[in-house]
């Protein structure tokens, strides 16, 4: 059991690295401009939305002890419960695919543009599949170690970038109106779909999840704002011309003899990607095992299957930028956030409510 247990701080370290990878690999697109001072304020909306979105999940966890061992035993024969579990798995499969595709684009655009990255990516997915067997405990504990490395390296890069910040690179706040700001902020906020996993793993976290979640939201928002401050301050409108603005900003960082800090940062970002992908594969296997007992017995085989599926689709998507555009489209991104964070918890509340009423009725 120790294998699958984590403290809240360990788990939220994992979640922090996971969302941090989203901002590192943030892709500039025409829908939302990065090169605006408004970008620095969007994370505040992200924090508010994350906290509000957590409320139904809190209710689920407190009132119904959702996805706890007892509930899983109790509802093991309910078809609805099985469908919901599978839906969670499917959504996070897409999320893993988007993450891997984004990293593929990053690797093939910035790291080794003239090399075929297929083997590297397949290797990365194999590593993630293997690491997912170590369970939530192992991954969360490792995340606390990585967190220190990531924060130190990112902080160091930020310090070296400070001299490159130019006041004229900023733009007036709410230049395009508050409505646009609200829309852009909403789009920005859907980066953190991982918060939907909390009800799925809460039974394995021992401690005060709510307090740590609140802290995580605030710290993530502050970190995003700081990173975006450097992106906007150093790049200005140039940020909107770059596929990966955060990487473009980091590539300006240098310290004395060290002129290529982007290489160091890239290695750090790969750590974050590995943590995120591993976590998603773990969640996919876990949710499917809730519904299918056979999967529970052959977790390793199933995670290998998931790895093969992700790698196969990735190879298909990778060779064509149009397919990639579909995978990274706003509709898919919104779906991947809304389904596990809003829709499925709402359905679960309804299902549990009906189940409770039925149970009470039978008792009476």
């Amino acid at each position, binding site marked *: 059991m120790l294998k699958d247990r984590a403290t809240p701080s360990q788990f939220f370290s994992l979640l922090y690295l996971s969302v941090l990878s989203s901002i590192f690999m943030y892709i500039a697109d025409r829908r939302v401009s990065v090169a605006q001072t408004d970008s620095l304020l969007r994370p505040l909306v992200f924090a508010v939305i994350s906290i509000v979105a957590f409320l139904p999940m809190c209710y689920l966890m407190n009132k119904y002890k959702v996805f706890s061992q007892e509930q899983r035993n109790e509802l093991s024969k309910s078809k609805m419960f099985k469908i919901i579990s599978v839906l969670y798995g499917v959504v996070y499969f897409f999320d893993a695919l988007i993450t891997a595709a984004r990293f593929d684009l990053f690797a093939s655009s*910035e790291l080794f543009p003239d090399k075929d990255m297929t083997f590297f990516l397949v290797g990365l997915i194999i590593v993630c599949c293997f690491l997912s067997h170590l369970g939530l405990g192992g991954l969360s504990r490792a995340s606390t170690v990585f967190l220190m490395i990531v924060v130190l390296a990112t902080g160091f890069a930020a310090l070296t970038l400070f001299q490159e910040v130019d006041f004229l690179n900023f733009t007036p706040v709410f230049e395009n109106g508050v409505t646009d700001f609200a829309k852009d902020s909403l789009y920005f906020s859907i980066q953190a779909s991982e918060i939907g996993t909390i009800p799925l793993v809460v039974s394995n976290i021992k401690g005060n999840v709510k307090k740590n979640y609140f802290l995580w939201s605030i710290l993530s928002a502050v970190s995003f704002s700081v990173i975006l401050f450097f992106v906007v301050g150093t790049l200005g409108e140039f940020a909107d011309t770059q596929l990966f603005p955060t990487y473009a900003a980091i590539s*300006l960082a240098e310290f004395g003899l060290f002129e290529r800090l982007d290489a160091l940062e890239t290695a750090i970002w790969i750590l974050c990607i590995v943590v995120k992908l591993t976590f998603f594969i773990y969640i996919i296997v876990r949710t499917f095992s809730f519904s299918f007992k056979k999967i529970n017995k052959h977790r390793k085989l199933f995670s290998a299957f998931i790895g093969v599926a992700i790698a196969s689709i990735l190879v298909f998507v990778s060779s064509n930028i149009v397919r990639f555009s579909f995978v990274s489209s706003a509709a898919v991104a919104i779906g991947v956030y809304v389904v596990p964070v809003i829709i499925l918890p709402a359905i679960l509340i309804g299902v549990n409510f009906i189940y409770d009423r039925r149970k009470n009725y039978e008792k009476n």
Partner: protein
Amino acid sequence: MRKIKIVTVFLLCLFCVTLFSSCEKPGTELSELMIMQGIGIDFENDIYTVTVEILNNEQSGSPGGDGTSENKTKIYSAKGETVSEALRKLTEKSGNEPLFAHNRVVVLGEKAINRDLRDVIDFFERDYDSRVSQLICVAKNSSAEDLIRAELFKDGVKCEILENMLEEGYNNSIIPRVRIIDAVNHLKDATSGLCIPAVSVQKNGENENYFLDGCGVFGADGKFLKYIDSATAEGLAFLNDTVKKGYITAHISDKGKATFLINKGTTSFEIIEDDGVLKYNMKIKLSCDLDEIEGQENFKNDTEILNALQKGVGESICKKVENTFVSLQNTPSSDVIRFGKRLRLENLDLYNTLADDWGNIFPEIKLSVTVETTIRRIGEETFNSQKEIS
């Protein structure tokens, strides 16, 4: 604990693979690379000519190229319909793969600057290998090829000298620093023009020298407008608030001259609209050290010298800044100092009403300059005015 170790080992292996796998070109030997030091771009008859200076690796044995095996660098030229095509054609001449990541400077030839600058630099923005921090300069009164092929001396990297000149010029507040990223930022802004340092080749006996020769001024549409000379370009650092170090020579009350080393300089602006005319109140705060003084015996005491010195520095800077500003306002004018962007940040509503007509508004802007000088040190020597006082 064992699990943490396993996870850590796996991830650190991945970390090492990424960090220690050489730079940009895995699987390519160093001798098989054309390590770019400088790229010159010329344009004539709808064809680009690129001239590159590359490191001459003794082991490479690349055929062709001008230069003996003793030279540190080799120079190649190639033609193409686009910059990218011309650069890729270099491979046909050298047989090696180009590596742009170490390129120091991009030189734009006299004829290339007559094209839309945005088209010329697009390759450097888009290419995977190219760094956005490489410097840009203009070859004044010559082609980029002539500049890169200049006979400076037998052994040395010419583009390294060029890069150092541009960097030092910026550090001494003589010229602006223009990297690819700066050029893009200026040209994306609807009202901002761009000032790119110009470099000329000067004959010096048998050899030739590079020298900084003012700046090339571009309009907001990316089109070349005119040159400004070195003396005029010196006020740009104050107008752009990019004063770092440098020196300034001031005449002190017609009684003598003094040269100061600048420690720190900041510029702030206040924008006022008065009867439809924009007025920019510019306040420069300067901290500097006295480095040399002539005619100190003409002053009665230390206080008088210091006051005269402060006044002299202020007047000298005001003159310099006003001269630069008037020159930029003169037809063809260009807002290379981003006054439009400053207005956008300070008064968005007013900016929105004026932005479309900024080309006509910029020449009408009134500038008022005040300088607050602090003399931080007077060097290792005291003022020798004591005997005069007694």
